[in-house]
């Protein structure tokens, strides 16, 4: 499809602004000498261009999206409507508090509700995404140890099954990463943890349920080991959808958590963002929280800067409109709806696993939480068909593939997370398709490497893309590629 730069013509454009009605000012030596080559297109062309691009984009409403670890649940329309209210979109972040009481109350109440769900005492909405939340949470841990004058705690323990963001966040926060191996059951190896925890341990980062979709039943022992060594426990909330309202990270022994509002709390992902990664903590870490916190007093909501704040991790108060959407979702579901969503997420995952377990090899033959991991290693060995081939085959059936090749501890992994918003028929159809693909892999393995066939483009040459990067349109060449 043509790029927008290849459309239009000189002299075309949209009429957006009126003439300025005050005298012009000459920017003198600061004036730009060469115009930016922006598109010269009519509104008709823009509108059609993006409609065509939309048709080449698979969203949650285009079909089943069981992308493991990403919790691609339905994004309720009321959330969008509420976030679009002019009362929220039209206020400046630096307005006087008395003129933004509604926004501050949204932040204050969302904090209260999410603290209740996670078992934490305070929460900041400044982090814009999950990884940003991890970084923030680790800075709280760093701030805490620094304030105690304990400079020896330089290491963060991270299981080898963790999301790549965990070790990367730890490094950004200036910690050394110690990888903790997983046991044969996919859970934390307690002996390895005991051996690693010590006076240099700043903390542990963990998801529970973990990235293989299992609830680590030793969780109390794990957090106890870390606490006894003087470290703190960080909960990566990527998988909270399995347990929200059922069991709380705070009760598992965690001191600090981040949530992904764009996963668990139904806000859309926008093709890669904006998300929201609020960080909650127990009161011992609250003095270190970043930014400003809304506090309700006799004269309404006021801002308060935590006493030993680590500073701002983002300008202003985070991706506020995303918080409005998640807040709307919590109001909708309420006390009973939150755990019901988690339980149905777990049920849907177990049901799909049950439909597939006689056909695909499950990495862990155990009741799963909200997601499960299959290994195509045996299939690949037998037929040459890989997890990638199976994923690409799904594209021709209108199904977004599961997460591929993650977690790293499972070979040829496909990680499946159906979420609670899918119907039984959708799960049955997906199971039928996956079983059919497996039969095809055994019958005609060679043809599997050519898939997909029905998508706007076929498999793309990623090697050339990385070796000879073309990352912007070349106007001098006149046309793309």
């Amino acid at each position, binding site marked *: 499809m043509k790029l927008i730069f290849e459309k239009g013509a000189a002299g075309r454009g949209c009429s957006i602004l009126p003439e300025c009605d005050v005298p012009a000012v000459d920017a003198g030596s600061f004036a730009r000498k060469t115009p930016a080559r922006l598109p010269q297109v009519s509104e008709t062309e823009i509108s059609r261009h993006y409609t065509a691009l939309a048709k080449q984009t698979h969203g949650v409403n285009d079909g089943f999206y069981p992308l493991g670890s990403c919790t691609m649940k339905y994004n309720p329309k009321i959330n969008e409507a509420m976030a679009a209210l002019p009362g929220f979109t039209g206020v400046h972040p630096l307005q006087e508090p008395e003129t933004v009481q509604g926004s501050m109350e949204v932040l204050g109440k969302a904090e209260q509700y999410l603290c209740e769900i996670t078992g934490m005492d305070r929460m900041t909405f400044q982090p814009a995404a999950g990884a940003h939340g991890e970084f923030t949470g680790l800075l709280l841990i760093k701030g805490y140890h620094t304030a105690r004058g304990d400079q020896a705690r330089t290491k963060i323990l991270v299981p080898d099954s963790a999301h790549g963001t965990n070790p990367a966040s730890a490094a950004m926060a200036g910690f050394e990463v110690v990888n903790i191996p997983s046991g044969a059951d996919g859970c934390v190896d307690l002996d390895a943890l005991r051996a690693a925890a010590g006076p240099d341990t700043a903390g542990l980062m963990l998801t529970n349920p973990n990235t293989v979709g299992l609830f680590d039943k030793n969780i109390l022992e794990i957090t106890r080991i870390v606490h006894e060594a003087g470290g703190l426990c960080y909960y990566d909330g990527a998988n909270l959808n399995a347990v929200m309202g059922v069991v709380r990270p705070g009760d598992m022994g965690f001191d600090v958590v981040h949530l992904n509002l764009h996963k668990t709390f139904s806000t859309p992902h926008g093709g890669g963002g904006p998300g929201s990664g609020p960080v909650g903590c127990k009161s011992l870490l609250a003095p270190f929280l970043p930014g400003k916190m809304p506090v309700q007093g006799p004269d309404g909501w006021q801002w308060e800067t935590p006493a030993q704040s680590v500073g701002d991790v983002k300008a202003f108060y985070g991706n506020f409109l995303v918080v409005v959407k998640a807040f709307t979702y919590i109001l909708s579901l309420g006390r009973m709806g939150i755990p019901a969503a988690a339980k149905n997420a777990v049920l849907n995952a177990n049901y799909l696993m049950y439909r597939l377990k006689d056909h695909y090899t499950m990495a862990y033959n155990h009741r799963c939480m909200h997601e499960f991991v299959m290994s195509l290693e045996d299939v690949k060995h037998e037929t040459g068909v890989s997890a990638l081939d199976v994923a690409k085959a799904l594209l021709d059936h209108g199904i977004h593939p599961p997460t591929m*090749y993650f977690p790293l501890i499972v070979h040829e992994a496909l990680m499946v997370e159906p979420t609670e918003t899918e119907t039984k028929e959708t799960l049955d159809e997906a199971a039928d398709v996956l079983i059919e693909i497996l039969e095809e892999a055994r019958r005609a393995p060679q043809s599997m490497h050519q898939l997909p066939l029905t998508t706007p483009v076929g498999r793309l040459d990623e*090697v050339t893309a*990385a*070796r000879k990067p073309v990352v912007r349109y070349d106007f001098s060449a006149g046309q793309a590629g």
Partner: protein
Amino acid sequence: MKIDAQLKYSKSHEWVRLEGDTATIGLTDFAQNSLGDLVFVNLPDIGTEVTEKEPFTDIESVKAVSDVYAPVNGTVCAVNDALLDAPETINSDPYGAWLIKVEGVSGGEDLMDAAAYEAFCESEAE
């Protein structure tokens, strides 16, 4: 799998050509084959000290990054800049596509000769 009989080899699959007190270092055919299509090579600055059995740079394939370990001690005196634009030559000509040359070489006592390395690769492949 190709193995050049003239070279010395490390267990981390680097090859070394020793000439006087300088050494030329590259990746073996076994290494490039298991890494797949290479897309980028980071090269150290000239003057960087490298230490035996410690990583001195890394190389990238589309979905992986791998450390490259120094088989000997020494100081980088030349880097193969041509690889920056053509990392694929490591795939096509592993023993021609050297990465760095180091001078003031020491260490490397337990490097393998071609025969020992061939046996080592066979044991690794199992």
